Each structure stands twice: as structure tokens, then as C-alpha cells.
């Protein structure tokens, strides 16, 4: 009975199903060209935007991964570049030390800074020399850039250096250009003081200050620093001269102890 009531193309669910089957059958039996034309139209109109979006997303993901790889490569190359730059700096420093040692007529012992480098707030540097090398209290300590200070005590291969930033470290010095003489010592502030220079002395900003050798504590000609400021005080007999040391104490690594100096 139910089969008799089946009205495929007139009404109800059967009609919907029936007409759908008819359309499907017509498509199925249509020619290949027809089917491809219909399919290409639908794919282009309906799927096209999604395929395009999909393609863009894939490209973005690809670019993201490529970017990650390149970023990793940049970091790797930066690290390698930093290592090479450090090697270059070390090479330059060692070449400078070698040159200094060759030029110097004095007997020097190479040493390595092991304690915290000094600064305006401190005055001592710990150094280490090769075992077996003889040290003397008061021996000058120099770096390729200039004078560091002198040895104030030692135990075995370790020595304490009283640097230019120590109030007890005074150096007889002179202006290399005008030969104006004075005493280098640290009083206060970020620079050294060139003391006891007469008011009529010819000292100018930029002049190089070297050790004079007077007093025989430091040999003559050791570079100390550059004149930073020169001030005249009408109530004083001396110029107020500030000197910026050549040695950068905060980055001090390798020094030399001069042996054959002393009274």
C-alpha cells in the first residue's frame, strides 16, 4: 500500500528526493564537456575564494617558518660576529703589548689583572704574574696605554697594585710639550689632578702628561694622561689642571711590572 501511495514528483518528501535524483541523473549522463564546464564554473565561483585564501595562508605560514629560520641564522651569525670581534680586539691588544715590550728598554714582567679593576671609587688592582718571577714593592706597573700605578705589596705570584686612583700614589710628571712640571695625584672627582704647576706655566688642554723620572720611583717618559681642563685661580700660586688618564681602568686586563727601576 505504501508503494502505491508513493508519488515521486508531485508532493512531499518523495517529490524533493525524486527531483533531486532526476537532476543528478541528468548531470551524470550529460557529456564530459558539459560536466567539466558546470564543475569549473562552480569551483571558480564557490571554491575559488577559499582556495585563494588557503593559498595565502599557506604562503604566510611558509614565510613565518622562513622568517624563524632566518632569525635563528641572524642570531647565530651575530654570536659568531661577536666572537670574531672579540678575537680581533684580543689580537689588537696582544699586538700592542708585543710592540710595547719590543720598544721598551726596561725589563718587564707580564701580568694579568685578576682583581676588580679600580675606578674613581677605588684605588687597588690585583694582578697575577708567572710563578718564579721576582716582584718588588714600589715597582711601576704599566699597560700599553700608559701608567697604571705601582706595586704596594705581594704574596707569591699575586700582587696588589696601588693605582693612580689611590691617594697614596703620586707621580712626578711633566707636560711633554712645554716641559712644565708638577705632581700627578688623585684628589677627588673623575679626573686626576696635575698639582703644583705654577700659574705662569704653559699648560693647555690636550697636552700629554708623562712621568718625569724625578724621584726615581717611576721611569721617565711613561704616558699618564691628557690635560682635560686648565683653570686659573687668582687666590692660588698654582694652576688647577685636570688630567684624564690614558689607561681605562675598568677594562684593564693585561699589564707589565717594570723591574729595574728604583733608588
Amino acid at each position, binding site marked *: 500500500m505504501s508503494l502505491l501511495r508513493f508519488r515521486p514528483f508531485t508532493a*512531499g*518528501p*518523495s*517529490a*524533493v*528526493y525524486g527531483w*533531486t*535524483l532526476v*537532476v*543528478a*541523473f*541528468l*548531470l*551524470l*549522463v*550529460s557529456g*564530459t564537456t558539459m*560536466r*567539466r564546464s*558546470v*564543475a*569549473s564554473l*562552480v*569551483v571558480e565561483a*564557490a*571554491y575559488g*575564494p*577559499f*582556495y585563494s*585564501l*588557503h593559498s595565502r*595562508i599557506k604562503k604566510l605560514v611558509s614565510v613565518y617558518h622562513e622568517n624563524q629560520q632566518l632569525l635563528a641564522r641572524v642570531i647565530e651569525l651575530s654570536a659568531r660576529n661577536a666572537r670574531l670581534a672579540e678575537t680581533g680586539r684580543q689580537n689588537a691588544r696582544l699586538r700592542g703589548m708585543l710592540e710595547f715590550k719590543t720598544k721598551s728598554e726596561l725589563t718587564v714582567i707580564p701580568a694579568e689583572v685578576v682583581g676588580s679593576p679600580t675606578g674613581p671609587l677605588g684605588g687597588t688592582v690585583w694582578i697575577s704574574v708567572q710563578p718564579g718571577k721576582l716582584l718588588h714593592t714600589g715597582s711601576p706597573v704599566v699597560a700599553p696605554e700608559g701608567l697604571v700605578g705601582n706595586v704596594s705589596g705581594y704574596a707569591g705570584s699575586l700582587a696588589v697594585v696601588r693605582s693612580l686612583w689611590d691617594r697614596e700614589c703620586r707621580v712626578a710628571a711633566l707636560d711633554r710639550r712645554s716641559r712644565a712640571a708638577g705632581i700627578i695625584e688623585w684628589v677627588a672627582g673623575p679626573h686626576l689632578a696635575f698639582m703644583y704647576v705654577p700659574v705662569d706655566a704653559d699648560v693647555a688642554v690636550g697636552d700629554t702628561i708623562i712621568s718625569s723620572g724625578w724621584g726615581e720611583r717611576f721611569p721617565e717618559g711613561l704616558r699618564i694622561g691628557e690635560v682635560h681642563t686648565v683653570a686659573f685661580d687668582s687666590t692660588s700660586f698654582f694652576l688647577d689642571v685636570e688630567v684624564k688618564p690614558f689607561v681605562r681602568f675598568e677594562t684593564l686586563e693585561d699589564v707589565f711590572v717594570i723591574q729595574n727601576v728604583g733608588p
Partner: protein
Amino acid sequence: MIGRLLRWILIIFTVVAYQGLLAEYLAPRGTGLRWDILVVLLAGMIGGTARGALAGGIVGFFSDCLVPEYLGWGMMVKATLGALIGVSREHLFTERLVARWAILALGVAAHDLVYLLPVSGFDLARYGYTLGVSTTISTVVTSTAGMGFLILWQLVSRTAPSLGLGRGRDGLHA
């Protein structure tokens, strides 16, 4: 009328979007969530025979466009599937979740059983392999996802009146 039209457009949109964007990842080589079949099954189960058949026809048409050699065949199979699911909903006891899950699983398996035979060129080895691997996996995944959707549908239908979203009728027993 416009509401119904929009609903159908939305259904087609989800099918096309899924096949254009996500199917490559969620159903590689047909082993995964087959959203097109699930839509037909859900339409039949929620809407009945007519909606199931219509959904099957439309979804089948859009799916067939990706394989133009068989344009019409998928439409025919899916329309039949949708109609049969609608008939089963109307004539079988489907209150229990297991029964619904079984109908969904049978639907996916039956679809592949019929649809793949000519598509595989009547190569029984290829046909058997596809049925054994792709269909098995996709049957489990798709029917389970369909169950989740049906449960969600029921929850929304029950809570809709209090939220002011609709009449709150469970379409499964309309």
C-alpha cells in the same frame, strides 16, 4: 522563506569552506571528519526526509564539482543517504544516543560503500583498501562528531527559550 534560504546558504558555505580550507588538514585522504556527509546526515536526522534529500543533493552537487568525472553520482548517493536517514528518524526509535551514533556511523559507511565503487574504477583491491582504512577512520570520527553536534543541538533547543533564541523545540522529535 528568506530565513530558510539563508540557512541553506549557510550550510553550503560551511561545506565549501571546509572542503576549500580545512579538509586537507582535518581529513587527509578522506581519513577524518567528513563534514559534507555529516551535514547530510544531520539534515536528515534533524529535518527529516525532504530536508535530508535536499541537503544531500546540494552538498553532493558541490562535492561532485571537485571530481567532475562523477558529477551527479555523489549527488545521487548523498540525496539517497539524506532521505534514508530522514526515513529512519521517522520510523525507528532513535531516542538513545547509541542508536543515533549507530545510524550516523552506518550512514557514513553506507555512503562510502556505494559511492566509492565506481569512483575506484571497480578495482576491488583499491576499493577494499579505501573502505578498510579511510572509511573506518572517517566513520568513527564523523559519527562521533555528529553525536557531539546532536547533543549540542538538543542542549541549545532546550535552553533557547530561556535565552530568547527560539521556540526551544527538539528537532529530533518534532
